[in-house]
């Protein structure tokens, strides 16, 4: 079984915010620093990390919702990181974004039908009747009744709104979707519904997906490959099976052990990290994780560890491997 071909190759992606300022004195936020990974066709890649890890910035930069400071985003053979807005346009309809907050991301003044067909309008796809037909089919796909077309977002619950957000991303039949924390604003009992829906849709359409989440079990359930970010850098990447069952980076190990189990009395071997995530305004020298790492030594301050192979398609960036 040969691996499917790459759809998106992220190479040395870097995004810094600030640094200008009226007197050139404002500090640079190193949100994403030299991030490299590959998303193969039909695969779900999970991007996991805590706040400040840069996961949302990576997702938005790949779709060019924000412009990168450096690096490449090779999409189906073309580096789209440097394309002008007009040159980017034909690429846009191949990719869609699903937002975290179903309350903030849907216009309250538009009907669901208008929200769903807006993207088709902009791309000039079909007649109005055809567009509404595609919107209705998208509602079918997310298991909402077609009557919803004439209603407004505020008439729906959080879970239903997230279904509308997903339907909006589906109408253009994109080959690539970035889903940014698609369930974290939802209640526990609703999360599982949406996670199941995302998996069914992905399995049916064979879409390629970048799934951004801080929730390790959501990634574990949906993603074929996991990329673990910390302070804008990749700590570990590999097949979900390998990363979840045999994590190699001390950060991944601590992150997995920090998730509390619902089995009472099951005190697993837990590594409680000391301290907080440092500010991306002044990340530590060398390995960015060293200030909280239980096995860091002096050499970790001097060298930025490169990603190195630790198994089949499995890499980690640590001097202590």
């Amino acid at each position, binding site marked *: 079984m040969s691996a499917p071909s790459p759809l998106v190759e992220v190479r040395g992606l870097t995004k810094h915010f600030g640094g200008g300022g009226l007197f050139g004195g404002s500090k640079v936020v190193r949100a994403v620093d030299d991030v490299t990974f590959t998303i193969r066709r039909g695969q779900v890649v999970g991007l996991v990390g*805590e*706040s400040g890890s840069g996961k949302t910035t990576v997702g938005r930069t790949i779709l060019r919702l924000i412009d990168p400071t450096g690096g490449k985003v090779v999409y189906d053979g073309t580096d789209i990181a440097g394309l002008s807005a007009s040159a980017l346009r034909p690429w846009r309809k191949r990719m869609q974004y699903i937002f975290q907050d179903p309350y903030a991301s849907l216009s309250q003044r538009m009907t669901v039908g208008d929200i769903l067909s807006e993207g088709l309008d902009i791309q000039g796809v079909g007649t109005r009747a055809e567009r509404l037909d595609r919107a209705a089919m998208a509602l079918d796909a997310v298991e909402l009744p077609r009557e919803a077309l004439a209603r407004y977002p505020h008439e729906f*619950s959080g*879970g*239903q709104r997230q279904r509308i957000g997903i339907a909006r991303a589906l109408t253009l039949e994109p080959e690539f979707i970035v889903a940014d924390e698609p369930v974290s604003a939802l*209640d*526990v*009992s*609703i*999360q*599982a*519904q949406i*996670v*199941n829906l995302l*998996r069914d849709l992905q399995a049916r359409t064979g879409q390629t997906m970048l799934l951004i989440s*801080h929730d*390790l*079990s*959501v990634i*574990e*359930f*949906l993603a074929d490959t996991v990329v673990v970010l910390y302070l804008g850098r990749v700590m570990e990447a590999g097949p*979900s*099976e390998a990363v*979840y*069952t045999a994590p190699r980076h001390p950060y991944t190990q*601590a*992150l*997995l052990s*920090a*998730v*509390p*189990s*619902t*089995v*009472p*009395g*099951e005190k*697993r071997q*837990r590594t*409680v*990290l*000391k*301290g*907080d*995530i440092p500010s991306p305004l002044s990340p530590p020298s060398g390995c960015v994780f060293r200030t*909280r790492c239980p096995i860091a030594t002096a050499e970790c301050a001097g060298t930025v560890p490169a990603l190195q192979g630790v198994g089949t398609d499995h890499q980690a960036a640590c001097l202590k491997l």
Partner: protein
Amino acid sequence: MSGRPPLLEIEGLRTVFTVRGTEIAPVNGIDLAIGAGETVALVGESGSGKSVTALSVLGLLPRVARIAAGSVRLHGEGGAIDLARLDPEALRTIRGSRIGMVFQEPMTSLNPVLTIGDQITEPLLVHGLATRAEARERAIAMLDSVGIPDPARRLASYPHELSGGMRQRAMIAMALVCRPGLLIADEPTTALDVTVQAQIVELMTGLQESLRMGILFVTHNLGVVADMAHRVAIMYAGRIVEEGPVAEVFTAPRHPYTRGLLASVPRPGEALRLRRAGQKLAAIPGQVPSLMALPTGCAFAGRCPLAVDRCRTEAPGPTVPSPARSVRCHRWDAAA
């Protein structure tokens, strides 16, 4: 309550809100007891009434709300007092001295223009429990015990100078400086990253053991409940639908809602197994009913896999499936 002396006893508590002329009951007749030195978790999803319960105990309800029925008895030296009947002035005295509180977002609870030191010493000075010099010493000791490095220097810091985890530690120090017998913690770890959440859970568990206080821990995170609570009460649409020791409720849940909640949080390793087997996550169908239009009968019946006709007409009363446990369900002994 497993033989502990009672600390807080909530009986028949009903809290109502008046919204556009209509009265709704986010807390609709609940009973809950916390023993001295016991951690009780109150679990529910948005709109379940868990936070309104906490605010009712603290006397911090918004203006549109009032306690319509029931009692909230706080036990102490000299007997019990009913917090539901106290005037605002008397409640203020009790908050901070006998009941500490920690909320989800430390940035909105801490005063941004006062130093951490001012805020930690304030309750001691307001309640006349210490001189300024003593208060400072106790504040330093408290910051040290919540794991804030260099505590004497931190007294002069402002909240914005601390990280999220450190702010939450400072808020816990503030809540505990008067040595209250009861701590009410409303989603204290929800806004934190998982590695920092693990630190705060470890800290609270340690403090609970050393200070022997009772804790009412309001959360939606079942993993945190399993980690630190002795007993758990599950709320749904204003009622406690199941209650008992965490170990028993989590290993043998009786209410179909509890079962559904536990099943929808895959245990580590389980999501991978389900995916390999091509199976779905266990989801609870439908959504939480609106408090404006609660069904007659059991509020969960519309989403319940076990519901029968009786569930749609008759609200289930409390049943005791085993000692120390309680469940409100007509079908509690039906097979899952």
